[in-house]
């Protein structure tokens, strides 16, 4: 048990380092956009906040999936996570539709010319279709 706990700690440290690195890159972009500088401490603080926020995100996502009687977290759960801010929800929904439609394109490429009519669906319909597929995979 002690070994497992230690391993988990080491993984957490590595993940914290990965988050810190990415946060550093993203802050650099913001710094250029807004023409300000970020102190090292402020970048470390944003990393720490992000890492802690992941715990809340993860537990919520797991609950949302379980509420829908699934063990796999889907894009629907992520959309629920973004419900508090309207503009955030709009952005995340749009990204989710982009993902769904690029999935459709890939599937269509595999099928080749077998179904050209399907390409003319609206994004909303495409998304619904993909979600259905995902659900049936899980059963």
């Amino acid at each position, binding site marked *: 048990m002690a070994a497992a706990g230690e391993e988990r700690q080491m993984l957490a440290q590595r993940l914290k380092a990965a988050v810190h690195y990415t946060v550093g890159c993203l802050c650099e972009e913001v710094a250029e956009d807004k023409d300000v*500088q970020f102190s090292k401490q*402020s970048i470390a603080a944003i990393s720490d906040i992000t890492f802690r*926020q992941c715990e809340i995100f993860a537990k919520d996502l797991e609950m949302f999936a379980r509420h829908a009687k699934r063990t796999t977290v889907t894009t629907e759960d992520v959309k629920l996570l973004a419900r508090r801010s309207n503009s955030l929800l709009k952005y995340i929904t749009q990204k989710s539709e982009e993902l769904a439609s690029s999935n459709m394109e890939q599937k269509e490429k595999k099928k080749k010319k077998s179904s050209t009519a399907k390409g003319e669906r609206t994004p909303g319909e495409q998304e619904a279709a993909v979600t259905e597929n995902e659900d049936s995979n899980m059963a």
Partner: protein
Amino acid sequence: MEERGGRAGGFRKDTVDRLLRLHFRDGKTRVNADAQLLMAELLKVFVREAAARAARQAQAEDLEKVDTEQLEKVLPQLLLDF
């Protein structure tokens, strides 16, 4: 989205998956590929939002450098929005 599998706007898909699974209570819980990419996007928005709001706070205070003090001021509202 062009960066499938690899980097999805900052956070790697694999990093996101491990971050989430670190905190799941049930070991059977999984995250599908699209949800991983969407979470990477959400985390990117979270970080950029934190940085942008702190930067705006610093500019309102006529500072050139953002420090933890500015971050502390914008943190409560940030956490309410996510």
